């Protein structure tokens, strides 16, 4: 009684009268935290159920319990009316629960085809792996879902977005009753998102229960039948999507009204040029990019996937090599072209990829914050710990960074708070220009508005903020001026007043 996406219609029809999955009174504690408290969550076959909530609301914990990654402390789980005991990922897979996690869960050295069948290799009569079937079936599967990738390619050589699609495809290769997708669109292009939605609807039409975890309201309104909101580990509401508006959904998620996501406090931007980039080109992407950023302004860069925003961000702070062009920070040339000089001149990058390029996850909050300015705390070549801690504490207070102590490992903080620590790292150093790349990626609504307020404040304090973003509301809400990129070129620069979504998109398409 399940659906094999490879051979639809071969199994008996799914009984739509019994819930696919019913979780009752689920509780889970971690040392010092109640992650889930008496949570109910029920999935109906053939329905797309959005699971929403801020970071720390308990979404991840709930789906990890479904996946068998965590055990539950209380409650019961029933699959189609039968109580099940899921103790490991293996148990969960056996019950037909497929979870596509946000982090890519593929073996990068394996071929795409092998990854598709990682959870269960087709076995020939002798007990050996049937490689022919693996290749043929994955090709057939890709064909069915309209996914154009070479099954023989080494997975690690694919761009992240395609790897994510491979993972989604994998969820369909075996019999599935419940498919869970955790923020599946975070690194997909608009085309891929459209394809993903088609696939999700197809899954639902085959009777599979789909859980869709996302921060993106517009996506949820587009795809979901039902929405469950969690907050602080508690179940807040479960409603048909039709009964929700943007406002009610946000209200459920954060427990208060957000009247304005983009509270502008700062005054008008100055006219002093803080960053001037002229005819910048890189080997891989950028072609003749020229612009200026002024002290006290937020200059927003918009572009579709692959437009070159991240490349630009990395090039102007001295991180990636350039082949021609000049970069002037506060009137002084960034030469030699390296991050050391960049930081000395006062330009820093808040990276898009916090985990691998920003955070030192195992290290405590204070060391993450003070990393770029240890020289400032040094006395006779030794770091003055007291001074260092005091400086970090100042920022923790100023930015209301939620951490149990300065000594907490930063990986245990929420995404929003991690981001604040990283911003502190650069401010402590005394920057003139800060480049922020997708500052709210993987950060939920409530924390987002805090990051926005922080960016607003940075500009208010006289920094030039160069913000790379793919989110239109963020761009229009925060930027004083908007620059648009397309395939490595700058295609338009406009003031906030003259900008419209249409103008921006037109320039982004080129």
């Amino acid at each position: 009684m399940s659906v094999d996406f490879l051979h639809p219609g071969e199994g008996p029809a799914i009984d739509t009268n019994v819930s696919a999955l019913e979780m009752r009174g689920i509780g889970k504690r971690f040392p010092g935290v109640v992650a889930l408290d008496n949570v109910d969550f029920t999935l109906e076959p053939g329905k797309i159920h959005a699971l929403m909530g801020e970071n720390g609301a308990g979404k991840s914990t709930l789906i990890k319990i479904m996946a068998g990654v965590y055990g539950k402390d209380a409650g019961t789980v029933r699959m189609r009316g039968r109580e099940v005991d899921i103790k490991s990922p293996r148990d969960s897979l056996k019950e037909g629960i497929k979870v596509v996690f946000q982090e890519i869960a593929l073996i990068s050295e394996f071929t795409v085809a092998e990854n598709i069948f990682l959870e269960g290799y087709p076995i020939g009569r002798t007990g050996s792996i049937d490689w022919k079937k693996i290749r043929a079936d994955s090709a057939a599967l890709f064909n069915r879902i309209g996914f154009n990738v070479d099954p023989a390619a080494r997975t690690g050589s694919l761009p992240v977005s395609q790897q994510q699609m491979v993972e989604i495809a994998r969820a369909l290769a075996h019999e599935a009753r419940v498919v869970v997708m955790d923020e599946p669109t975070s690194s997909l292009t608009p085309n891929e998102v459209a394809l993903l939605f088609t696939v999700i609807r197809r899954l639902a039409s085959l009777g599979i229960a789909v859980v869709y975890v996302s921060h993106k309201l517009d996506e949820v309104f587009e795809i979901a039948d039902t929405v469950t909101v969690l907050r602080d580990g508690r179940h807040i509401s479960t409603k048909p999507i039709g009964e929700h508006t943007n406002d009610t959904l946000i209200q459920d998620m954060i427990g208060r009204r957000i009247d304005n996501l983009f509270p502008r406090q700062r005054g008008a931007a100055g006219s002093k040029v803080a960053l001037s980039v002229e005819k910048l080109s890189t080997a891989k992407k950028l072609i003749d990019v020229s612009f200026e950023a002024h002290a006290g302004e937020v200059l927003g860069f918009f572009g579709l996937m692959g437009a070159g925003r991240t490349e630009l961000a990395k090039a102007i702070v001295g991180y990636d090599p350039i082949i021609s062009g000049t970069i002037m920070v506060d009137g002084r040339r960034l030469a030699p072209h390296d991050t050391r000089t960049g930081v000395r001149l006062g330009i820093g990058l808040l990276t898009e990829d916090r985990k691998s390029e920003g955070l030192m996850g195992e290290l405590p909050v204070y060391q993450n914050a003070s990393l770029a300015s240890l020289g400032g705390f040094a006395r006779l070549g030794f770091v003055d710990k007291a001074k260092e801690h005091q400086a970090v504490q100042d920022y923790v207070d100023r930015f209301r960074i939620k951490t149990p102590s300065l000594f907490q490992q930063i990986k245990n903080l929420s995404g929003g708070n991690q981001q604040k620590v990283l911003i502190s790292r650069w401010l402590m150093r005394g920057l003139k220009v800060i480049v922020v790349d997708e500052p709210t990626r993987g950060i939920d609504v409530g924390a987002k508005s805090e990051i926005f307020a922080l960016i607003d404040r940075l500009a208010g304090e006289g920094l030039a903020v160069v913000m790379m973003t793919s989110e239109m509301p963020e761009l229009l809400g925060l930027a004083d001026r908007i620059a648009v990129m397309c395939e490595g070129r700058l295609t338009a620069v406009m003031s906030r007043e003259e900008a419209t979504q249409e103008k921006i998109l037109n320039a982004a398409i080129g």
Partner: protein
Amino acid sequence: MSLASTASAKDQPSLLARLFARQELALLVCLILVLAFFSATVENFFSVRNMTNVLGQASLALTAGIGCAIVFISGEVDISIGSLLATIALPLIIIMNDTNSLLLGVSGALLFGLIIGVVNGYLVAYAGINSLIVTLGTMFIMRGGVYLYTGQRAIPDDASLDSFIALSDGRLFNIIPYSAVIAIVLLAAFGYMMQHRPFGRQIYAVGGNQEVARLAGYDVRRVKFICFIISALLATVAGIILAARVGSAQHTAGLNFEFQVVAATVLGGVSLAGGIGSLTGMALGVLILQFLSNGLRGLGLPTEWQLVITGMIIIAAVAFDEAKRRRANGG
């Protein structure tokens, strides 16, 4: 509707580059170069006698190297194999001297090897202790234990069973040493397992990304546990052959053997980080080093120089590999 941008034609590397991307092929070319060089410079190097002799000498490292490579691929290390070689000779020789039975001796040795594998595997996989530390520890414990038991003297093989002696100097069809035959059969069997049996792929998956393997429903601890048992049992087989060769159990047997095996395995492109490499690569690594050492001796170069050259080759090979990988990843 389709997802655009699979690699376009211009991104395809040239045929030569792709051939070289196959680790094993590059190693094979190196092996051929080594053979060609010494055939031209050393008299009698390229003779059936010398070739099969070297193969026989290589069989110890080939056999134990299978286990070493498998443990590497699972993302761990096992450096206890050299001491294990010396240790299992004790039950082997003692039982054979008492019973005059090769079968009982070998069974005793394998049982002992199994116990060591279980201990290593349990401590790494279930107790969660770093495998370098665990096997460093068992390496010292076993070496010390053998010394405590034997003292300076060796325990000679008094039984002198024909079947046991054949392991050292017998040859299949009077050409290929039995020890080499054993190594080749084991290589083929385990090579097949690594590429075509689900368990072999699980080892690659665990070494490639432990968390992903766990999410895919694999029992990561069990996989690692078994890898250590495989390694210990294969080292036991190598130890039996060594004991047949030296005709005794002695505390210096297999001294530094683990490092020769590790060197050859790394040269063969098996990554210490796990998930990468093949038994074919390991075998080519063993052969390259063995023929190199044989040829250098033929040129009259002292052993000290062989060590220096081996060291340089290993670093160069791994550096080359790293550079290649970096280029492949476009960084």
